């Protein structure tokens, strides 16, 4: 035991020495870390702590243990709808947008430099053009002036306009469509960049070794060489796919018909900024937080095995 204690003391001394020598590093990093702690770390901790309280912003929070979580899973039917929608949504947009990011980046990589720059702009533009997704709302507008209704009416597919944004069976597919349109963002750029730095000699060597077509090349060379980019892209896409709210609210309103567009995020907004049931909203936030981190970690573990 004594030797362990001595070992730790020595280790501690060494760390302290190193810390004293790194004063400049700490000084440089301090402003960022301070603000990062205040606006990112502290809120997560607070959210977890508040989730076990009853808190309405007027009275001080009162500790109630697991009650919020019990209420969420056992009594709140709307929450279960939200969970179902969120998972359905993430299970579709997550993988589809991820693959779309990669496949389009891979296709674009085959083009000549000028065309490549143009196509990159074209595919990336929606994700940075802010509120332009509202244009979808006008296109799906429920009267005959909506572009899609107008077209369907003109060619006789339907005889009266469809209320796309009000009928439950259309709501989720439309949100998914718009979200996919918005999703070729940061990871798409990362893939474009990653494809350009794959060592070219690998392809030449592979051709000699009997790789016959672009699909084999993709599977045996490109994907393994891109692993770190694939992991980065996965983080961005997964996080995005679980956080749908602003698009849903802007497109189909809140609350949507039969809660068809209701997600964990909008449920959180409902309790947080409308009903001011902060403890309960924090429980929702904590669950969403754990779901996001959990699925990210799971996918990271899966991608790590890629090409091994």
């Amino acid at each position, binding site marked *: 035991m004594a030797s362990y204690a001595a070992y730790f003391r020595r280790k501690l001394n060494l760390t302290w020495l190193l810390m004293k020598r790194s004063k400049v590093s700490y000084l440089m990093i301090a402003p960022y870390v301070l*603000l990062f702690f205040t606006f990112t770390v502290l809120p997560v901790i607070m959210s977890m702590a508040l989730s076990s309280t009853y808190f309405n912003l007027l009275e001080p929070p009162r500790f109630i243990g697991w009650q919020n979580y019990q209420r969420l899973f056992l009594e709140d039917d709307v929450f279960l709808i939200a969970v179902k929608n969120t998972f359905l949504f993430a299970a579709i947009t997550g993988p589809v947008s991820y693959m779309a990011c990669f496949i389009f980046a891979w296709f674009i990589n085959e083009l000549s430099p000028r065309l490549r720059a143009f196509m990159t702009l074209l595919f990336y533009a929606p994700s940075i*053009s802010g509120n332009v997704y509202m244009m979808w709302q006008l296109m799906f507008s429920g009267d005959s*002036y909506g572009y899609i209704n107008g077209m369907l009416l003109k060619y006789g597919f339907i005889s009266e306009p469809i209320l796309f944004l009000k009928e439950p069976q259309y709501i989720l597919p439309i949100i998914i469509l718009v979200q996919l349109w918005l999703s070729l963002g940061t990871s798409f750029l990362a893939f474009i960049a990653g494809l350009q730095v794959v060592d070219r000699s690998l392809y030449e060597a592979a051709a000699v070794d009997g790789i016959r077509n672009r699909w084999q090349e993709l599977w045996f060379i490109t994907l393994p060489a891109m692993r770190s980019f694939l992991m980065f892209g996965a983080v961005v896409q997964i996080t995005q796919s679980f956080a749908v709210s602003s698009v849903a609210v802007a497109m189909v309103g809140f609350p949507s018909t039969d809660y068809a567009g209701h997600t964990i995020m909008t449920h959180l907004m409902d309790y947080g900024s409308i009903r001011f049931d902060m403890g309960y909203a924090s429980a929702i936030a904590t669950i969403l937080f754990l779901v996001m981190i959990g699925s990210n970690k799971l996918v990271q573990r899966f991608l790590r095995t890629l090409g091994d």
Partner: protein
Amino acid sequence: MIMRLRLKPHKINRSLAGNAMIFTMLAFGAVFMALPMVYAVNNAFKPLDEIFLFPPRFLVRNPTLDNFQDLMNLMANSWVPFSRYFFNTMLIAVLGTLGHIVLASMAAYPLAKHKFPGAKLIFSAIVLSLMFAGEVTAIPNYMIMSWLGLVNNYAAVIVPAFVFPLGLFLMKQFMENIPDAILESARMDGASEFQILWKIVMPSVTPAWLTLILFCFQNLWGTTGGVFIYDENLKTLPYAFSQILAGGIARTGVAAAVALVMMIVPITIFIVTQSRVIETMTSSGLKD
């Protein structure tokens, strides 16, 4: 440090059929992506009788600037002048981006080039924070803002943007490519770490900070101020835009005009910085 991007697509193992398929799929994708943008551009220039035409026509036939005129009138008559919304958005976007670049580079440099206790922990916290969306913590964020007395203040939107984690992540990854020998020789010449950062490191990571400008500016350009800003005088352009759109079908033309104004800025920034952004993203990989 200097990245050599591949200039020509390679030709081994490429069949004609495969090329044809790729072009077809790219064309479909491009149409889907471009459609709402083209729709927005066209609607912005449509006269009212074309907007309310049945069946609706996709492309504009007699382009006019009426919608922009209407937008100007609408904004001139609104309680808060349009220029005010524009000023608010600009102020938030410029200050937020500036602060973000300064703070993120200052933090990225030691994380990339110094070894010190806690560096790994800080970096993994940053990577972890990429794994959840900021909206999740909206409630405690609001509470913290109100404790700090920043509610209904530009700072409530500007300051959190400083610590946007993606920016630090990209900056740090990119700085790792700088050869240690250069830094070491500067240290020999007696340069302090701060001098090394501003005089040597920053000029050689131009692509990275241009990328941070793009991401951060675009983020703040689209912000409505949300729950943090309630004073009409302090509201932003996207907020004004959503108010106009709430006017319904009668405002379709004006809404399209605003949409066009809103998207021009980030898209222009991207056109200018595109090659630098791609260069930065070459070091965005997440290592195990």
